[in-house]
């Protein structure tokens, strides 16, 4: 039996978000209260509740998704990672100042270098394992995803590519990001179907260059205005007017804004292309959020947090998920009779690593 996606010629999309903020409000409110009253320990259960709601309100073809991860396993996963990381951090916390205090600055900087190498590696592992965990707890039609790869090699690849990117002042980052996307997703599966990813940096280089060129161009304009202003000041012997100074400051602020905006502009293109390069069996994916839509999401969330005096923080996860699902497209057909259960092992440390380093899965 084939279930049609993109609902053939119909206007209904294959994947839809059916939740609404009023229905989510009791979850958001009680989560916030319980987190505060438990010194933050409840946050693992809070995020499990949030995901149970969001997944169950996400409809794919003829059935909703299901989240089976629990707060308890995320809490235990966090403790497992803590047991590894706390001695590691404490060791460096004492070793580094002890070396500095003894005047062994070379040894101290060497230690710091090793420390950052280890952190980079673990962040890569964390990212991989967070994705693996999320897939392993996401079900549809009684089938789940996962991966048999523990992600240790991915950590090495992540470290290598990012070190290369750092050494080239991030110029080669589009290549690093696209290769890493492919490595990550090619290791993942849903049911017995494996994800395939063929993302290249083609079409992403221009936007990446903009991150460097736009602020530089603006700087050149400021320089020219300065030169002209100076000429005028000399010609007329007058003082620089306060209006002129304000204008220059405003331009500098614009440059500071230009860098994050250009980065957002790149990420918008990255996620569109990345989703387009992903397939699962006969399913193809797409993502259509534009830079402007991403910007509205970010500004909307910030505004919401400010207007609600911080309470809006409890809606960040909701807004992000709704945004993702609304812009995600899935085409093609899926043979549900042939989609068999996943045989991958589900990780036990849940999102402990990602949680420790505060990184997302996608």
């Amino acid at each position, binding site marked *: 039996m084939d279930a049609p996606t993109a609902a053939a010629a119909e206007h209904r999309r294959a994947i839809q978000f059916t939740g609404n903020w009023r229905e989510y409000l009791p979850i958001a409110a009680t989560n916030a209260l319980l987190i505060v009253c438990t*010194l933050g320990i409840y946050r693992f259960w809070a995020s499990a509740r949030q995901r149970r*709601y969001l997944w169950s309100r996400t409809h794919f073809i003829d059935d909703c998704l*299901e989240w089976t991860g629990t707060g308890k396993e995320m809490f235990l996963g966090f403790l497992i990672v803590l047991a590894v990381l706390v001695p590691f951090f404490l060791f460096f916390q004492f070793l580094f100042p002890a070396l500095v205090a003894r005047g062994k600055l070379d040894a101290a900087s060497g230690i710091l270098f090793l420390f950052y190498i280890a952190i980079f590696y673990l962040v890569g592992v964390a990212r991989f394992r967070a994705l693996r965990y999320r897939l392993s707890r996401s079900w549809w039609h009684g089938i789940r995803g996962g991966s048999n790869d523990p992600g240790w090699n991915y950590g090495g690849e992540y470290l290598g590519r990012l070190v290369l990117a750092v050494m080239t002042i991030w110029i080669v980052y589009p290549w690093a990001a696209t290769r890493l996307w492919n490595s990550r997703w090619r290791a993942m599966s849903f049911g017995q179907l494996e994800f395939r990813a063929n993302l290249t940096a083609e079409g992403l280089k221009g936007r990446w260059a903009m991150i460097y060129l736009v602020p530089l161009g603006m700087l050149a304009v400021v320089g020219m205005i300065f030169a002209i202003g100076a000429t005028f000041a000399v010609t007329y012997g007058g003082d620089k007017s306060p209006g002129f100074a304000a204008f220059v400051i405003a331009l500098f602020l614009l440059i500071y804004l230009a860098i994050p905006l250009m980065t957002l502009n790149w990420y918008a293109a990255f996620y569109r292309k990345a989703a387009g390069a992903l397939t699962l069996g006969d399913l193809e994916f797409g993502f259509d959020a534009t830079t402007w839509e991403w910007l509205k999401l970010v500004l909307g969330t910030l505004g919401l947090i400010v207007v609600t005096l911080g309470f809006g923080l409890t809606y960040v996860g909701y807004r992000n998920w709704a945004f993702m699902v609304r812009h995600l497209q899935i085409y093609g057909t899926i043979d*549900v009779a042939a989609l068999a259960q996943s045989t991958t092992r589900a990780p036990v440390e849940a999102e402990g690593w990602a949680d420790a380093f505060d990184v997302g899965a996608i």
Partner: protein
Amino acid sequence: MIRGTLYDGSSAFPHDVCVDVDGSGLRLTQESGWSDSVDASQLKRIESGAGAIRLGQLNVPGWRLVLPADAASKLEGLLGRKERYGRWIDRIGLLPALVVGGVLTASIVGVGYVAPHWIAPHIPMSWERNVGGAIVGDFGDLRCRDPNGQRALEALVDRVAPGATRGPDAIRVAALDVPVFNAAALPGGYIVVFKPAITETDTDALAGILAHEVAHVRRRHVTEALVREFGIGALIRLFAGNIGANAEQIVSLSYTRDNEAQADSDAIQMLKRANISPKPTAELFDHLAKEQGEGSSFGAEFLQSHPLSSGRAKKFAASFDPRAHYSPALGRDQSDALFNICWKRPVKQS
């Protein structure tokens, strides 16, 4: 009889099934003649949207039975209560959990912040020395080792706090060749002064700074900060994430500010007893305040660990007694030796 959809957990294929509720569970049948029964104790509710009821089976991963929402009345009594907030919260109920949790959290945080203030004075100095020694060491090449300068520096400490550099709990003071205008009290009774604080100030002002740091050591403020940091501070940073850490910082800072103010008043007393004029210290803080270009806003002080320098300047200036006959903190020779403490003699080639 209810019509529903069954996913068996081995493939994604949806099976149409008829479901009957009998006393102890559900009986599933298909027109093909297949049938199965599931005991109610094996069933669990699964979160789903308004339009459907979703059931799982405890021991069969992926086994899902989807029933129309109007079947709810028939299933009443068969299924246990829905898990809402997590099992440990559900067991005691939301409101009791909030109250108990709130009281516990408030007391942990309260004790965590207040207790170090009371505990710190009872921690044996020898323990602190071990920790301090492990962290601080001998400062290696950073330390200024001119013997005359070192003697002068110790004399200055002794001048504001007689006997402080001798005995088992002696304060150990070191000058460091670091280009930052600062001084600090470290764990284990160490006081460090950075080079610019020696070369760019009057000896009397340096006496004021050292008196302030001696007060920190004597009041066990450093110990207090260490205990707080490794106790409640670590706990909050672990579990409450970034927001918790920021809140923690603000609370710790309020303690830091109280301690700084206390160290300042102690320093004023010490200067008075030593018959050293507080005026140079006041002028130094005034100068620092101008250098930092700080306004008189309350907000600035609220987020700073040290009280505003202009406020501190006023306190020191107010303690100046115009009738007193102050004497210089150090004699001429010692002042010169102190000034040159970080000056390294060229190594003789043999």
